[in-house]
């Protein structure tokens, strides 16, 4: 039946038909070809030739020749953490499948499993029904699975053509390079995505969106079947986003499947066919995109009951310690941020990755000095141009990457503990070693740091204990304002509780605390108020009583105010 129709179509010369005509025929065909044609969600068998003629994405075809990409029962552990718990995911030909979830829901790990960058502990990835047994992203790319990350992975010193060639040309290290061919191939690929970039340009001189286009061109060159886009529009303007969507449309008409990860729910509503929600490493649900609204999505993403495992202590709030008004720093992309923190108060700072939380902290601490705006500590306006200024103003900052930016491995524990207060433990530039020892020993005791003594090199300590040493340094400074960036990330549950207890102690002693955290439960459990950031500015501040995972996420995603949604 189908064969006959096809033959008839061929004789008609389907190349001359308009998309609309093809769509019409496709529908008719489907009704005939599939006995369950009326059921929604079923995919129809459409001949390849027909599909190739359809130049527009409003004609959606599928193959029932099997799924393009499947992940079945994926398990992945990192140490004691189960990053993925029996996750299943599939992608069909010509489909845009969106993947959504909070920070840390397991999206990145799932992508890594799909591209083969990470080998799952259990479960299997199949490309067109054939299991993918290797863990080599380069091989995956050759087989047609490509991923494009938020940060383009280009070689900035090489030309565009070379960047494209590095991924796509095969052969040994000693093959002869045919430059003209290389350039021609690059030109073709760039044109294929409708971009205008000279293949001879040095990739590092391209703008971020242009670099992203190069990434897509690279993927196309490898004849991509499944393209994974991780937050592709985060650095794009509206026009560039439109262009990206056109490219996606073109790809899907070729039969490629697209996994689309984004925090921008409105985008997802526009281009996705199906949406899968991940939460805490589990697949929560997969739904057809046109059956869910953003509200439902947020609920699905948050879902959990914020169990009050956090020992929030009621601390009477004192005077305003930190007052920030109109803080702006172009270099750090912090825009007009204003808030106050009182003595004994913990202000949680929530937001998606890339919302500018760490940048806000770095601006407050003078690492990226503010262009305008005022910072007041204890009622006095402070000019903070560098970390030294911040420290003398009574601000302390425990950065996120404590292993790299925190402890100084070569120095002993005692030197690490006092590095931020060298002035205080020395007289006329001379270090008072006894004082240093006592002070360090005191903090080792109070934080329960496991070490061979204060003279042991910090690098000899375990990761968790190194973190505590870094924290001790800042607590030793006796700050009035303490900024903690992801204070409990990557530490075990016991240490986490201890960390929260210490925060409570400090609050009780009247320290104003800014706690940046990606863990909603921690934010909700520990904060008195919650500042939610989005795109470098404050999206809003919620009181503990009115805050919920939904309200925070809605602010972070920009769904709360209808006038902003446009």
């Amino acid at each position, binding site marked *: 039946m189908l064969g006959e129709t096809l033959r008839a179509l061929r004789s008609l010369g389907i190349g001359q038909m308009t998309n609309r005509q093809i769509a019409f025929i496709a529908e008719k065909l489907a009704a005939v070809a599939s006995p369950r044609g009326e059921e929604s969600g079923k995919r129809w068998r459409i001949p390849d030739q027909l599909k190739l003629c359809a130049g527009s994405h409003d004609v959606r075809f599928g193959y029932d020749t099997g799924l393009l990409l499947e992940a079945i029962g994926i398990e992945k552990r990192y140490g004691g953490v189960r990053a993925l718990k029996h996750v299943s995911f599939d992608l069909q030909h010509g489909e845009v499948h969106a993947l959504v979830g909070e920070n840390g829901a397991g999206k990145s790990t799932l992508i890594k499993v799909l591209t083969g960058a990470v080998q799952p502990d259990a479960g299997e990835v199949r490309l067109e029904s054939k299991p993918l047994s290797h863990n080599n992203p380069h091989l995956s790319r050759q087989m047609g699975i490509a991923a494009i990350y938020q940060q383009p992975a280009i070689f900035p010193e090489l030309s565009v053509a070379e960047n494209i060639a590095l991924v796509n040309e095969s052969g040994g290290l000693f093959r002869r390079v045919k430059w003209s061919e290389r350039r021609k191939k690059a030109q073709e690929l760039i044109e294929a995505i409708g971009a205008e970039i000279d293949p001879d340009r040095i990739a590092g001189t391209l703008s971020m969106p242009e670099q992203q286009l190069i990434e897509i061109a690279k993927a196309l060159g490898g004849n991509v079947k499944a393209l994974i886009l991780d937050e592709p529009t985060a650095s794009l303007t509206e026009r560039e986003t439109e262009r990206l969507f056109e490219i996606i449309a073109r790809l899907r008409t070729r039969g490629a499947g697209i996994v689309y990860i984004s925090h921008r729910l409105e985008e997802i509503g526009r281009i996705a066919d199906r949406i899968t929600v991940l939460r805490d490493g589990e697949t929560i649900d997969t739904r057809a995109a046109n059956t869910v609204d953003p509200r439902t999505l947020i609920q699905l993403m948050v879902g959990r009951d914020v169990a009050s495992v956090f020992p929030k202590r009621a601390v009477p709030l004192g005077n305003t310690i930190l007052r920030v008004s109109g803080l702006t720093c172009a270099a750090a992309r912090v825009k007009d941020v204003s808030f106050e923190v009182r003595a004994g108060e913990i202000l949680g700072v929530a937001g998606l990755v890339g919302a500018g939380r760490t940048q806000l902290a770095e601006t407050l601490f003078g690492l990226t000095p503010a262009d305008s705006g005022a910072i007041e500590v204890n009622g006095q306006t402070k000019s903070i141009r560098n*970390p030294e200024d911040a420290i003398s103003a009574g601000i302390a900052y425990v950065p996120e990457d404590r292993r790299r*930016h*925190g*402890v*100084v*491995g070569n120095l002993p524990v005692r*030197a690490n503990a006092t590095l931020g207060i*060298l002035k205080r433990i*020395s007289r006329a530039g001379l*270090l008072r070693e006894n004082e240093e020892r006592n002070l360090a020993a005191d903090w080792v005791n109070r934080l329960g740091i496991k070490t061979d003594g204060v003279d042991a090199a910090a690098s000899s300590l375990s990761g968790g204990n190194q973190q505590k040493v870094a924290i001790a340094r800042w607590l030793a400074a006796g700050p009035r304002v303490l900024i903690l960036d992801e204070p409990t990330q990557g530490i075990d549950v016991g240490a986490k509780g201890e960390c929260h207890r210490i925060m409570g102690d400090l609050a009780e002693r009247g320290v104003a605390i800014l706690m940046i955290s990606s863990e909603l439960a921690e934010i909700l459990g520990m904060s008195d108020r919650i500042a939610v950031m989005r795109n470098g500015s404050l999206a809003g501040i919620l009181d503990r009583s009115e805050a919920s995972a939904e309200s925070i996420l809605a602010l972070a995603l920009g769904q709360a105010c209808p006038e902003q949604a446009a």
Partner: protein
Amino acid sequence: MKQRVIAIAIFWLFLAIRAPRFFEAGNLRDIAVANAPDLIVAIGMTLVIVAGEIDVSVGSQFAVASVVAGTLAKFGAPLPLVALLTAVAGGLLGAVNGIVVAALGVPSIVATLAAMAFWRESLRWYTQGAWVQGLPPTFQWMGFSQRTGEIAILALTAILFAVFLWSMRRLQAGRAVYAVGSQRESARLAGIPVQWISFGVFVLAGALTGIGALLDSVRFSQIQSNSGTGLELKAISAVVIGGASITGGKGTLWGTLLGAAVLAAIAPSLTFLGVNAFWEKAIQGAIILSAVAFEKVSARAR
């Protein structure tokens, strides 16, 4: 460190059996006096390397400072003033390196390589290769007898060594040098003015090189305008043999002293052992390589 000391003790024991005359007081003193200026330069190099930088221009600075010292002495400046101005001149040469590295962000190997060539060639152009001659009698051996002059040189070196040994351990600034060399970003977050530290170590290295050049010059009746050739390698070698990490953050002056002692002993001990002196550089290279390789191997074993 302990293993190094043992290795050197074994070498000395061997030397004591095969060539006991090496350990005669006169010989040891000669070696010490001849190498004291190099040790002073190596002190500065230790600071630079611990701070995570490198300075290959000290040899050229040494030559410039020697000529400055000689010229000032010829003009009749009193010795204390000569000493002060020579140190200042060295400090200024170091400050140029410091500005280029700390303020402009040029990698120190590049900046000091350029300085090395620039000062050496400028000096050659200025002096036309001529030596500084006709120095006043108060200059050689600082106006003392040779014996007293030698003791003065050793005493001054010992004092400088002690001062820097103490400062690196006990001064806030010394701690900061280690912190910057070890983890620049952490140090910055701890409120340490990292750029000033980088600048400071180059200035100190320059000033120490100036003093070293002066103490070297007073040993002779005339001053060569091409002194200090290869000194940067000797100083860096001493620091590295002493167990400092070339990437910064690690190293002590005791180690540098040990390294300088080893290097100083190579040439004379070869003479006493009756080995061709042409082997000196090759042996020096082998010692440096084994010291660093040993460091890597023992680090891996840990």
